């Protein structure tokens, strides 16, 4: 039951994009079409889940026993970068259609701060292995949700008459503000 609460908290109440501002770059960059938003969201969710598992193992089985926690950031970012590379090669080998859909989005995930943020939060909150795994899936689902909603709104925005200085990034930020406002409605749902 606790794990379910953790999942909902990570996905909706403390949405990574709208309350922690993690993963804003792809949120602004890849939210023009719903179809590409779905692909990006799924790719991020996939990498997040694996990252959560691998960084937990590295931190608790390697860094803590040898007392080299100071290498936390360096090792995490290296793990994430190589993990993205591995996932890319794996998908290419196993499922060519999926690889073509995800295409350029895969390498971009390395610089997505939501992934590193996830690893840092799991350490900070002292999650167990299973908890970090659920946290990773939840955060990924929340990221996908925010990205798809945003893409839906932006498809409509293209048809409306926006003052010129606000076209593009300006209006996206303001819409994201309204979305964050809406998601604040969930705030009292779970207190974690």
């Amino acid at each position, binding site marked *: 039951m606790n794990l379910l609460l953790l999942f909902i908290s990570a996905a909706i109440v403390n949405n990574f994009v*709208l*309350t*922690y*501002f*993690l*993963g*804003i*770059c792809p949120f*602004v960059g890849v939210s023009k079409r719903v179809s590409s938003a779905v692909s990006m969201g799924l790719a991020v969710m996939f990498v997040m889940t694996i990252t959560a598992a691998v960084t937990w193992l590295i931190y608790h089985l390697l860094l803590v026993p040898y007392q080299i926690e*100071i*290498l*936390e*950031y*360096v090792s995490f*970012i*290296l793990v994430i*970068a190589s993990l993205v590379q591995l996932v890319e090669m794996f998908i290419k080998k196993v499922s060519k259609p999926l690889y073509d859909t995800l295409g350029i989005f895969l390498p971009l995930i390395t*610089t*997505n*701060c939501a*992934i*590193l*943020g996830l690893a*840092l*939060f799991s350490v*900070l909150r002292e999650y167990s292995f299973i908890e970090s795994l659920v946290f990773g899936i939840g955060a990924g689902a929340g990221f996908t949700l925010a990205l798809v909603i945003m893409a839906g709104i932006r498809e409509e925005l293209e048809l409306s008459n926006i*003052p*010129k*200085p*606000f076209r593009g*990034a*300006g*209006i*996206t*930020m*303001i819409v*994201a*503000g*309204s979305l*964050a*406002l809406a998601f*604040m409605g969930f705030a009292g749902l779970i207190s974690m």
Partner: protein
Amino acid sequence: MAKTPIPLRKEFLKGLWNDNPVLRMLLGLCPTLAVTNSAINGLAMGLATTFVLISSSILISLLRKVIPHQVRIAGYIVIIATFVTVADKFLAAYLPEISKALGPYVPLIVVNCLILGRQEAFSSKNGVGRSIIDALGMGLGFIFVLVVLGSIREILGSTTLFNIQVLGDWFNPWMIMILPPGAFLTLGLLIGLGNWLNERKVKI
């Protein structure tokens, strides 16, 4: 790259306005939004990021002929992560309160696209002196936006500026400004304002 070298003064000033990292290039948005609920947090974040940016620019422009092209991104990231660790431990030791307020956003400087972007676009192609000037300009442009954003949000959200009361009791604080939605709204309006001023050909 460029045939005629750009004067150093211009190299420095471009980061402040014409190529401002946040308002014009939309780089480093995560920390910009996350830590600007007060002016002092924005300033601390800006300074920490500038420190990492300048140090890694120096090291990378020195090593630009040594690092093999194929593994350059991984190399840059390791260098950046090292300086971020230094900045993080420094803040935790000397300014524990600010370190606590910024939380995981200090380690997240590693993935700030502003820093990696400048290394890839500038330091890997230019000498040390020029790279320092570029990093300094970009860093100051980043600090400028963070402090402006933090000030607006702090004044409207908690009626103070750098923890000094500026608005009287008559003003009912807009709680929303220090919460996440306020960050998005203020930055959206600032980007719009920047574009509007640019269109009217305001040059510095």
